[in-house]
């Protein structure tokens, strides 16, 4: 994991003091509401429905046990004893007092954390595959580059006041688990014919009001040119992106208006002046950052020890959990464990202070003191010995962390919705719960198999509903909450935007619509065919007919 040096520490402390002074001036009336808003947003502070909301950065989803304990302390001391993991691998606190936020930030700085650029019209937290470094299918461990991008984007003097927010994702494996095609910039590691590793640069993807799959503007960017090329893209966007209309200000609109080819040419023109400049990465620079992401001291173990295989056979519930909530590891004898935060009745992604402390202890006891946050809003123990899995499962069960539903229909990606967010048109949490209740039969849920279900409470699409195999969007109809269902969306290498199946549903009717959709899938699927594959094969029409058929 990256360790701050003296300069990193100093800059974060200086940002805390700058924000402390900004807050003081706001409270003293020296800064107006309008002037304070962009300043506080650039530090992750929203003013929400009930109270301010503070979003703390978890760079590319990496957390140490010490950091997680600090987050639990903050949840207890400054909030109501819990936090909410977000799709950008960050954590949000929903109830801090504005005056105490600078103190929270000072506490975070002690453990090398901050809230810098977790909101606002600037470069946000860079995200990546939650299994980076431990995944078996990786070309390149992208974490060194994620940290290089984090530092480049942090307090960037030229790009602090962009037309709109800006999100970058990095995927280091063949199988894209970082949703690179729906980011402002997606960097997908590729190998060229000479065997060199570089980035495919995808620009202008995004969800929100105008969901678009990104366009590749460069098939192969040698890794040493990463920062100069990013500077070129950001400069073109900063200068020419629309600033007259917030809904047309994302880079995707600029790319669309210019055409991807013309945009790419403009970036190349700009880059011609920056290429090979001072920000070009040398081998020793990359080696410096990569040195923080070396393998921990794995033991040389045989696969499938008895302590693992015996309960696997004797305990069906354990076997279900292993099948869904653990993942193969590059190191023989280890697996990664996904601690599910999708227990029915709990808002998806919510985690209590007690759960944070427990997970931090397990990271120390069973792993190497590290954890990950997945963009699916679950917590991950990346390195657990197979021989420890049975014990970890029992502990996780005691703490409400072991719902064996990872990747299944009830592992819903969900925004906080109208219960918390002032932008939302509709509540998401109770509807997600109703769906989870409808599909609480585990055998049935397992039989349905892999289904991404994504839920957003408004068209800002924080719950990424467009790329859910089945997506839900909360809409407002004359002051009432209604829900639109989309089908056919997906992330990864075959990213697609889902299509609306028809008129929206009242809250009470959403679970029934889901049931009809799933019934049709079960009837129509071919052997081994996943839900999304059936949707692609038979199209939306049969689903529409089933869902909207008059009952008789």
């Amino acid at each position, binding site marked *: 994991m990256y360790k701050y040096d003296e300069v990193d520490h100093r800059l974060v402390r*200086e940002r805390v003091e700058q924000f402390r002074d900004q807050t003081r001036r706001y409270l003293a009336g020296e800064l107006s509401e309008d002037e304070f808003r962009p300043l506080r947003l650039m530090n992750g502070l929203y003013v929400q429905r009930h109270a301010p909301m503070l979003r703390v950065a978890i760079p590319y989803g990496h957390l140490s046990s010490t950091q997680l304990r600090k987050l639990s302390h903050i949840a207890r001391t400054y909030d109501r004893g819990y936090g909410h993991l977000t799709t950008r691998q960050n954590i949000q606190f929903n109830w801090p007092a504005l005056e105490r936020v600078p103190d929270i930030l000072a506490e975070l700085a002690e453990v090398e954390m901050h809230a810098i650029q977790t909101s606002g019209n600037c470069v946000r937290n860079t995200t990546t595959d939650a299994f980076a470094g431990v995944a078996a299918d990786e070309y390149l461990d992208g974490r060194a580059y994620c940290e290089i991008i984090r530092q480049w984007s942090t307090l960037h*003097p*030229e790009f602090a006041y962009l037309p709109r927010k800006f999100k970058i994702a990095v995927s280091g494996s063949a199988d894209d688990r970082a949703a690179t095609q729906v980011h402002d910039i997606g960097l997908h590691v590729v190998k060229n014919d000479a065997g060199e590793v570089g980035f495919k640069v995808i620009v202008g993807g995004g969800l929100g009001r105008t969901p678009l799959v990104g366009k590749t503007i460069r098939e192969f960017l040698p890794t040493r040119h990463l920062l100069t090329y990013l500077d070129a893209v950001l400069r073109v966007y900063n200068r020419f992106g629309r600033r007259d209309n917030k809904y047309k200000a994302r880079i995707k609109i600029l790319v669309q208006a210019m055409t991807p080819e013309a945009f790419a040419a403009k970036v190349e023109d700009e880059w011609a002046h920056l290429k090979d400049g001072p920000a070009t990465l040398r081998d020793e620079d990359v080696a410096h950052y990569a040195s923080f992401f070396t393998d921990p001291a794995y033991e040389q173990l045989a696969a499938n020890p008895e302590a693992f295989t015996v309960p696997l056979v004797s305990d069906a519930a354990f076997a279900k959990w292993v099948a869904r909530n653990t993942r193969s590891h590059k190191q023989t004898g280890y697996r990664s464990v996904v601690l599910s935060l999708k227990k029915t009745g709990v808002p998806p992604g919510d985690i209590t202070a007690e759960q944070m402390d427990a997970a931090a202890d397990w990271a120390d006891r069973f792993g190497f003191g590290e954890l990950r946050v997945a963009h699916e809003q679950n917590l991950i123990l990346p390195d657990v010995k197979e021989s420890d899995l049975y014990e970890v499962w029992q502990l996780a069960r005691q703490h409400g962390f072991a719902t064996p539903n990872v990747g299944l229909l009830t592992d819903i990606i969900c925004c906080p919705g109208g219960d918390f967010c002032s932008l939302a048109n509709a509540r998401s949490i109770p509807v997600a719960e109703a769906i989870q209740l409808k599909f609480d039969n585990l055998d049935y849920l397992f039989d349905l198999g892999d289904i991404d279900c994504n839920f957003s409470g408004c068209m800002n699409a924080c719950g990424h509903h467009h790329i859910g195999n089945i997506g839900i969007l909360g809409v407002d109809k004359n002051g009432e909450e209604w829900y639109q269902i989309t089908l056919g969306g997906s992330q990864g290498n075959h990213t697609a935007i889902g299509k609306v199946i028809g008129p929206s549903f009242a809250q009470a009717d959403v679970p029934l619509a889901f049931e009809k959709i799933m019934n049709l899938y079960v009837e129509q699927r071919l052997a081994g065919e996943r839900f999304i594959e059936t949707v692609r094969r038979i199209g939306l029409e049969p689903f529409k007919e089933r869902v909207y058929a008059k009952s008789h």
Partner: protein
Amino acid sequence: MQNLIKNDAVTEDAWRLIRSEDESYDAAEDVILPLAAWLAVDPAARSGQAAPWLAPDADLSLLRPVLAQLPLIAIDFPAFTDGRGYSLARLLRERYGYQGELRAIGDVQRDQLAYLARVGFTVFAIRDDRPAEAALDGLRDFSDQYQATVLQPEPLFKRRTQR
């Protein structure tokens, strides 16, 4: 009244900012003019100096041939959330080698100064209703930076590995 920060101090100078092309001024005054008006100035007809101010969407190619002779360029920030001027400043400094004074005008306040200085601005015309003395502190918000920009052309990652 001027509310100017220059050389790390609150100061005054002789330049007068002319916002609109209709505004009148004397031939002896040092004036900062809208780009179009400045391009039309006949230097022989006046004894004072003239410099242009640029809107955030200005076309820099118009200035390139005369950059070496220019004593001052101002860049306007219609709103402090409009970040285009930061890119213009870096282009003028890093790409076109402009050496003269670069002045930030418009909605310029304390919290922008650290970044403005790092992209090459040397003079800050603080918004009239804000105390320039207090804004001076904004220049000291950060003691270092990660990126390579005008004030620090070597990125931190290089300075780290050179140690």
